[in-house]
């Protein structure tokens, strides 16, 4: 896997990457806590979490990132992109029962810099942005 095989000719500014939609569950959060060893009580202890500013359990912020990456990969029809730069900012918590929809929009195709810039979004079922970010995809 020495480089990316991207058909740049089909990439257009304004293209929207495929929606990747997922319902976040309490069991998923619990299992992710075991998998990652992140047992922060905000994720696993309802009694603790209800007395915090979040007023209840929240998902690990890194769970929905899987779907943000996946949207980019589906757009480029691949499983991995060498040299991909991915930056995100967490705006609001994702809670058990939330349905997240992740996608992106091509902001720039920089032939001179050899990359494609994509704005990234993760929204919940209320259409609130919960995570936003940017992916920079090298053309080669």
């Amino acid at each position: 896997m020495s480089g990316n095989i991207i058909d740049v000719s089909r990439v257009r500014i304004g293209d929207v990457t495929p929606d990747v939609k997922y319902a976040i569950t309490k069991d998923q959060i619990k299992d992710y806590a075991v998998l990652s060893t992140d047992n922060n009580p905000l994720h696993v202890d309802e009694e603790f979490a209800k007395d915090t500013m979040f007023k209840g359990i929240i998902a690990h912020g890194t769970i929905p990132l899987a779907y943000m990456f996946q949207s980019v990969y589906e757009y480029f029809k691949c499983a991995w992109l060498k040299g991909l730069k991915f930056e995100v900012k967490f705006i609001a918590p994702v809670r058990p029962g939330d349905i997240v929809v992740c996608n992106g929009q091509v902001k720039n195709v920089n032939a001179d810099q050899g990359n494609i810039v994509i704005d990234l979004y993760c929204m919940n079922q209320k259409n609130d942005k919960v995570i936003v970010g940017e992916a920079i995809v090298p053309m080669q």
Partner: protein
Amino acid sequence: MANLDGIDYKNLVVGKNMGTYQCNVSRELILNYINNTGLDYEKFILENGLIAPAAMVFVFTLRAIFANNIPIGGAVLAGHYLECIEPIREGRNVYIDVVIKDKYIKKERKYVLLDFVVRGDDGNINVVNTMRAIWPQ
């Protein structure tokens, strides 16, 4: 919201290497992650077996945090930066170095930046990651 082991924010030393965490990336571990996230298993089969989905690196970096007793229990995630260099393949080991990159206070919130460098058995870098977290207030 107290942190879990009582280390004060003021005692975090910028530039300090907090240790290296080693993990074997077994097929079972990758499948557990794929099952947890509901991703499509078949998309991660390459010529020589499975690769870890890119976002699985956060499982490794979280493990590195807690294995190295980095006192961010109770912290709230604010951001992540990730650069994917080489995929992590099943059966390989990864070694994750954690360094306190920076700490600062903004709008009365305390932030900490942690740098993670994920390498394989050959010493080559797979992924670099910076995590920005709001320290427990």
